[in-house]
């Protein structure tokens, strides 16, 4: 359960005050598949960063499984990023000199409880994601879709509860975008909470929950119809 209460985030750029997030109060239950949409500058990435503990709110509270994140040290947040959340980025953010397997292993470096055989664990994850025959390839030798799959495998490797994806299909063509979205939907059906930020309406409308932000405020929440009840849930308070 992710619970945001009156969360605000303000950036100051010289004399300009940019209110990136204002009075965000949200409850996101486990197993939710949520899309956050909005125009550029609406605060959707800021919200995702706060959800993923990459950033701290200016004011308000953020509870993860009823634990107040403001009470956590930087190391505590790093540990959450390592095993509670899995990040997927628009530009994949793979290490160019590391092959697929090595990229997937990286989260184990920072894990307090890495598996005994990290290579096997990473290989299994790549196999699950359909890249069994590409484990020794460098990112530059992989297509965009394949690279994003490596990134998803990397996000999954520490078995997190929540996958956070910032424009995961932004750099991909339509067909590959659909494949990636299908993978994310599949992960959701296996029990993961999946939260994606997107500005593509086609992508957003396939997600059961869609939160729309504008100027840092929640302006709309679309929920699935009664006949399309999925797991989880999102409540705007």
């Amino acid at each position, binding site marked *: 359960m992710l619970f945001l209460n009156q969360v605000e985030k303000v*950036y*100051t750029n010289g004399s300009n005050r940019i209110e990136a997030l204002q009075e965000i109060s949200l409850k996101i239950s486990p197993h939710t598949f949520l899309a956050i949409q909005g125009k550029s500058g609406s605060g959707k990435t800021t919200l995702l*960063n706060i959800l*993923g503990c*990459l*950033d701290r709110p200016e004011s308000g509270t953020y509870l993860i499984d009823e634990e107040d994140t403001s009470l956590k040290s*930087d*190391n505590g947040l*790093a*540990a959450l*990023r*390592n*095993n509670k959340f899995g*990040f997927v*980025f628009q530009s994949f*953010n793979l*290490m160019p*000199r*590391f092959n697929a397997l*090595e990229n997937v*292993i*990286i*989260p*184990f*470096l*920072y*894990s307090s409880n*890495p598996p005994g055989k*990290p290579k096997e664990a990473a290989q299994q994850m790549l196999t699950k994601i359909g890249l069994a025959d590409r484990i020794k390839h460098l990112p530059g030798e992989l297509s965009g879709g394949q690279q994003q799959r490596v990134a998803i495998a*990397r996000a999954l490797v*520490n078995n997190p509860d929540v996958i956070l994806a910032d424009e995961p299909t932004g750099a991909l063509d339509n067909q590959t975008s659909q494949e990636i979205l299908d993978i994310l939907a599949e992960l959701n059906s296996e029990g993961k909470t999946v939260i994606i930020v997107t500005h593509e309406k086609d992508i957003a409308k396939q997600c059961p929950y869609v939160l729309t932000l504008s100027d840092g405020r929640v302006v709309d929440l679309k929920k699935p119809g009664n006949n399309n009840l999925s797991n989880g849930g999102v409540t705007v308070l």
Partner: protein
Amino acid sequence: MKKSLLLRSTLKHLSANSLTTLFMCVGIMIGVAVLVAVIALGRGTEARILDRIDRVGETDSFTIRTVPWGLGGGGLRDDHGELLLSFDEVNSLPNQIPGIATVLPTLNARSPVLVGQEKLEDIAVQGVALNFQQVRNINIYSGSFFNEEDIHSGAHIAVIGPALANYFFPRENPLGKFIQVEGMELEVVGVLDTRGISNSGRNADQIVLVPHDVFVELFQPVGLSTVTVTVKDPARLEKLAAETQNYFEALYPGHQIFVRYPMATARARDEMANTLSFYLKIIAGTSLLIGGTVMMNLTNLSISGRIREIGLRKALGARNKDISGQVLMETAIISILAGVAGIVLGYLFANELAARLDLRSIFSWHAPVLGLFFALLIGLVFGVRPAKRAAKLDPVLALRGSQQK
């Protein structure tokens, strides 16, 4: 598992940026090289000084002289024509001052030496008594030194230095041949082992030694110019030397008696070598500091080029100390590489310098150990700032590739 993964990823990064890595290495490498060379040359110089003391003089003797330096002629007379440092006075010294073991009057002169038409000017001729060989640690290269009978028989014999033997008898055995000094034919019965340049700068190998009585016959000296005194306890050398000096100066009021100890000379040389190595150490320290600074700046630069990577690592759960640990590991690896290269370079440099400047370089284990220690120290000390900077990067900004808000 984690450590080997971290090490592998660091090595990968360093080898992928080999040019930067090389530049980072250079400064520290030079510093370590100079340090290692200093130690190698310092050890060599020290060994050479000790070696020379062993051959030219030793640690339990001093000399008293009527002239401060060099080989004086005959004895010295006071204003009333009295002989200074007469045989009797000198020989009674062990009875006068307890602690003195032996007294060895040495008679010095300089004279041309001839063999046939060959002539060498201004060669040191010394008249010696029996225990000369023991007192001066002189080794015979061939033939023999004078025995007791030779000293007192008045036989016209000589032991010559290797330089003279090579000059006069280059392709023949000098033993049994004759040299001419002051019109007297002397049979060569021995050749000394080489001693090199003495502490006073003379060529100790250009020398003719004759029995005491023969010297008197040759030069008719009126007194002694140099007396070598050995003491029973080397620790009391300086004290006994001062006592002896006072004794003779009291005996000859108004005259100065000079005392020299090989060890004191050696110690002075030691100090000179120490001064030299002190300045070389400053050079080594300076280049290590410069090397550290260069490495720090290049590491900073390399961090700036990897801000996104650092942001990503943080997003994947890296704690601040993981990031700083990675940077420190890089600087540590670089400084170890630089240290090893510097050690090799330092020995090559020391050997080259030793060959060109007629010095000696000695390998000792503490040079590489010290070299590596300092390299690593510099690597870690100068790695701390970039490491802290990298660790403090804000993950959100870093993921966007910027470091400032």
